[in-house]
């Protein structure tokens, strides 16, 4: 079964809940609705010709500062391509009248310009695809990487999750989801229901904030730094400003 067949199977079974698919270097990503996410996962696990029985990891992504599509850049790229096409035409006309020495030079220039036009068009198309993408309504994406140990397939399932949403735990399908869900709860603050033991596993239990969110400062909170600076033992240097991460 090829990647598009898996996509077709999902489309046929889930209809509107299926939100599209992407492929990069052989990695298949499908997007589904959060409401039917658990159903999709169960389907992928139990379908006899797929059998995604192994969950390498699951994680979340905070999309709050993801760059917006560059429509302006796309337009300028297209304009450049058009200008270059016109120049090619000009040169071709010149070529008809030109002498031998000049003709070779012109030919080279035309070939170079043609390559540039192809490149510019490709780039603008890429940007166009990005621009056409739906605008996000929710902050996070939750990601499940699935793998089948019986068949040679890998798939990534994504769903949009808001800050208030509660995701249904996947521990009843793969037990290895348990620790990853704890990590997501710890680092992003996304809550899960039906999880056997949801707790903060990496940060202390009384920690304020969720470190992997994009609005959490890299250096840590200012209060903590100030506390450390004022409580250093005698003879110890303060951490120099330049060594603190930017």
């Amino acid at each position: 079964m090829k990647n598009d067949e898996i996509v077709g199977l999902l489309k046929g079974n889930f209809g509107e809940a299926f939100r599209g698919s992407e492929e990069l270097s052989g990695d298949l990503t499908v997007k589904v609705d959060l409401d039917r996410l658990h159903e999709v996962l169960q389907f992928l696990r139990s379908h006899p010709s797929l059998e995604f029985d192994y969950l390498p990891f699951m994680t979340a992504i905070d999309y709050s500062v993801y760059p917006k599509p560059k429509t302006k850049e796309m337009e300028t790229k297209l304009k450049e391509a058009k200008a270059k096409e016109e120049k090619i035409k000009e040169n071709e006309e010149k070529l008809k009248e030109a002498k031998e020495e000049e003709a070779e030079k012109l030919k080279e220039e035309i070939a170079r310009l043609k390559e540039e036009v192809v490149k510019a068009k490709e780039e603008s198309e890429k940007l166009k695809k990005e621009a056409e993408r739906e605008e996000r309504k929710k902050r996070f994406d939750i990601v499940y990487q699935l793998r089948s140990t019986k068949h040679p397939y890998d798939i990534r399932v994504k769903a949009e999750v808001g800050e208030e949403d509660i995701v249904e735990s996947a521990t009843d399908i793969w037990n290895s989801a348990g620790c990853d869900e704890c990590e997501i709860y710890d680092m992003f603050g996304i809550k899960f229901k039906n999880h056997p033991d949801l707790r903060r596993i990496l940060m202390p239990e009384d920690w304020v904030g969720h470190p992997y969110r994009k609005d959490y400062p890299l250096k840590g909170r200012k209060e903590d730094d100030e506390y450390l600076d004022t409580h250093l033992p005698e003879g110890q240097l303060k951490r120099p400003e330049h060594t603190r991460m930017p």
Partner: protein
Amino acid sequence: MNSVEETRRVEINMGPQHPSTHGVGRFILTLNGEIIEDVKPVCGYLHRGLEKLAENMTYQQFMPIVDRLDYVASMNNDLAYCLAVEKLLGMEVPERAEYIRVIVAELGRIASHLIWLGTMALDIGALTPFFYTFRDRETIYDMFEEICGARLMYNYVRIGGVAKDITPKFMEMLKHFLDTFPRLMKETDGLLTKNRIWMRRTKDVGVISYDDAINWGLSGPSLRGSGVNWDLRKNRPYGIYPSLEFDVPYFPEGDVYARYLVRLEEINQSVRILRQCVEKIPAGEYMNPESPFVRPMKKPKEGIALKDFVLQIRGVKMPVGEIYFGAENPKGELGFYIVSDGAGKPYRMKIRTPSFVHVFALPKIVKGGLVADIVSVISSLDFVFGEVDR
């Protein structure tokens, strides 16, 4: 539950400063007499937020940080990270570099397994193998020092190839190592494999079945110890592994002894791979000359161009998209999930480490067993806390 039963239940705190937790791991055990009723792993003592750090560093800058994941198999970490970034870029690697990478990765695998073997024997009570394995590991570290100048944090594999070419002295050392090591390995094998105390401590201890091993996400040798014929080098091939001959050892028992046998056999298979590489290694480039990461590395005698400044400030521009790449590391599957927004820094990087999953599969394996066995189960799963906490 009556009061007699309640008083029988004891909670024991194991770690974070316990010698057999291999780092700063902490486990809260609930005991009923000598039987383990529950285990609660507590981690985070070594949490450095590497995933957050990655978002604020260029791809090149993050290289040395990757070494600090599984600090006893840094070469393999480097390789996994580079392969992930190369997958995102769609970059080709010269053939010589591929061979060098396999050589260092398999040497790293042997070194990691030797540490595991020594410390596991130490945990169970056999002191001698520890000295023998560390003696052999030292020769491997000497070889690594010869090619990259560091003994533990190599920072040797690069995006697009390797940092420096291997030296003739290294090849001599490697050939000598391949001649002597199998004989030395037999010593350790003779000390342990058939030893009656060793077998009593490991056979039928910490059993996990085929289906459970997959469902709980075990990977690498721990998965193969449960009879799963699974190796990413075979099942999701990468690099030049498809052109090399090696077997994937697996044992169906699923106990500590099976995991021990798998790792022991893996060392022999790594030696086999190394022998083929020494024969086949071609001459040529050790770094892809088109790699954008080489540019600041080379010495531009003609002076610094504006391009170099831009590269240093922004980093190399990457294609937009997301990829996941998992490589077979000594401990299991180490994977990098990179989301790129086109900038020189990753938008988000998730590091899938085998040890993190293994720690949380521990309760499943040790529940119902004796408290004395938890030490041998922990060492047979072979986790390193630099990887668990990231």
